[in-house]
């Protein structure tokens, strides 16, 4: 018999299935790529996604941009049925993801491009399709002679004009490690960097909460010089903010941005193909051009434009000028360093 209650139940169930299509578990979903927010998302949407779809019969793909740490949290919360297929990571979080057994090893033998990557980028747990480069950023209107070394930040003429970020970010931690190395420390010994920051205090105008906040400080004239990410500076420059990037003579810090297939992903094949597209010389060459200016890792890509001018002419030059850090060592003590930075660095 059709009672009112039965009718209501049926209607509710149908309604729920309509509202939450994920309820039917076996349903296939499009490939989900968790890129980073901002310029990364723009670059991937404009170049990587079309290249991938063209090569794979218009396969469905969704970009779900979020921070590395959020990607790890999301995959961790649903290991058996992860909501993400391809993750993008800075070096620190990449090691965390690998340590927590969240990534599938990259099928190196199947890959057409893996062997063409420069040595530092050939990582079996997930190759590095791009490098991020950190050097010195300055305002050319206020600072007439370009800085040449990290040590220039300590110059007395920059009193109250220097900005840094705290160690929450990859940039902040990488910068501190580099400073430690300059004064006899290493990835395992950060003490010299803390001592140096203590001496930097008269020059410090701001300790930003994240690298993005440094950008607005430049725009507001709050700071004139700071460590900065090459790509972030290009965006500011394109918006007409007076900033320039230089690689310090000690070498620019290079972070490997690695790309990973998520363990238990239902779309492993497509995930592999997306990563192949990211490693391909065609995609990397396009991403190297303005406005993206992303440093390529495939040796078949000939350096050109702003990157060739400011960073490195070719792969050999790049190896000479870039400094890579040992993030496995850094990660061991990073939590303690962040705590220490919280406590010790008070302006």
């Amino acid at each position: 018999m059709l009672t009112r209650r039965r009718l209501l139940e049926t209607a509710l169930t149908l309604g729920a299935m309509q509202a939450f299509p994920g309820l039917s578990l076996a349903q296939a979903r499009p490939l989900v790529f968790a890129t980073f927010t901002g310029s990364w998302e723009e670059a991937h949407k404009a170049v990587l996604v079309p290249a991938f779809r063209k090569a794979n019969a218009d396969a469905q793909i969704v970009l779900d941009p979020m921070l590395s740490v959020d990607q790890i949290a999301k995959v961790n919360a649903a290991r058996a049925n992860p909501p993400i297929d391809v993750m993008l990571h800075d070096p620190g979080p990449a090691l965390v993801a690998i340590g927590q057994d969240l990534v599938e090893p990259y099928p190196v033998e199947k890959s057409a491009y893996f062997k063409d990557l420069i040595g530092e980028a050939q990582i079996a747990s997930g190759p590095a399709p791009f490098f991020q480069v950190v050097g010195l950023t300055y305002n050319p209107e206020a600072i007439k002679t370009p800085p040449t070394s990290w040590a220039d930040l300590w110059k007395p003429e920059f009193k109250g004009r220097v900005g840094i970020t705290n160690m929450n970010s990859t940039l902040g931690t990488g910068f501190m490690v580099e400073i430690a190395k300059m004064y006899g420390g290493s990835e395992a010994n950060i003490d010299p960097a803390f001592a140096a920051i203590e001496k930097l205090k008269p020059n410090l105008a701001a300790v930003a909460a994240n690298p993005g906040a440094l950008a607005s400080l430049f725009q507001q004239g709050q700071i004139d010089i700071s460590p900065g990410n090459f790509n972030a500076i290009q965006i500011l420059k394109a918006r007409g903010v007076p900033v320039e990037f230089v690689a310090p003579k000690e070498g620019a810090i290079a972070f490997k941005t690695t790309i990973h297939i998520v363990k238990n992903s239902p779309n492993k094949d497509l995930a592999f193909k997306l990563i192949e597209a990211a490693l391909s010389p065609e995609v990397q060459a396009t991403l190297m051009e303005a406005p993206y200016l992303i440093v390529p890792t495939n040796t078949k890509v000939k350096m050109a434009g702003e990157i060739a001018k400011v960073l490195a002419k070719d792969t050999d030059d790049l190896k000479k000028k870039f400094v890579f850090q040992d993030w496995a060592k850094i990660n061991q003590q990073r939590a303690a360093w962040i705590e220490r930075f919280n406590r010790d660095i008070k302006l």
Partner: protein
Amino acid sequence: MAASGLRRSIDVSGYDLRLAMPLAGFFAAFFLAPLAVLVVLSFQTDTTGAHWGVTQYVQFLGDAFSLGVLASTLWLGVKVTAVCLVFGWPVAWLHARSGPTVKSLIMLIVLLPLLTSVVVRTFAWIVILGRQGIVNATLMSLGLVEAPLKLLYTDLGVVTALAQVQMPLMVLPLATALSRIDPNLVAASEVLGAGEWRTFAKVILPLSLPGIVAGSMLTYAASITAFITQSLIGGGQMLFMPMYLYQQASTLQNWPFAAAISIIFLIAVLAVVTVFNTLGRLSRGFAQG
């Protein structure tokens, strides 16, 4: 039959608890259950979850730095609430005493900030407080200061920006409370010989207390949890509880400690809210008695 049906339909003052069931179910599933998970998580001694104990709480409560972060966050709320009260009360009073046109104009001005995102409002404050911002440019052109003052990334900057961002939460309850005060009471007070200040202190202020308590509670809760404004105007080295929590949970992936921090923060805020509530009850008795 007909009689009982009639009686039931007449009972309009009663209410049916079952009507609240959908919302109660929603809260149970999406608020109480996650809160329970949070509490359980906070009793893990390490991130692997192998051992249980109160280590995280001991670590927080035995650490002067962490307690300092808690204290400065609660104190920040007090400062912002005080500023909002001092500047918001006159606005609410003006609103209650104005004619209909001015009244709706004031309400529009008060509500306008709520229509823009808090991120936008906070960025506006970066522009205002910066070295080349409006404040510094004005002070310099008037010759009052020689070099730009440091306003961004200071305590003063955070309090100012938060007070502006949260002001509507103070003004709205105050305006409601003040508009309920019978204007005749003021006239009566004056006829009985009280001066303006005495009327304010003995009649208007006590009657507005319920609004003050409600507004303060909202402003306080909103300002101590305002992650965006605190981190954008305060910068990386003014650590408040929301940022501390984010750092532990997200950057360091130390969920048990982050969970313990949030439980401690929750209890501290509940304690403050209880104080406000008690004041509110007392004030009602005061205002009516």
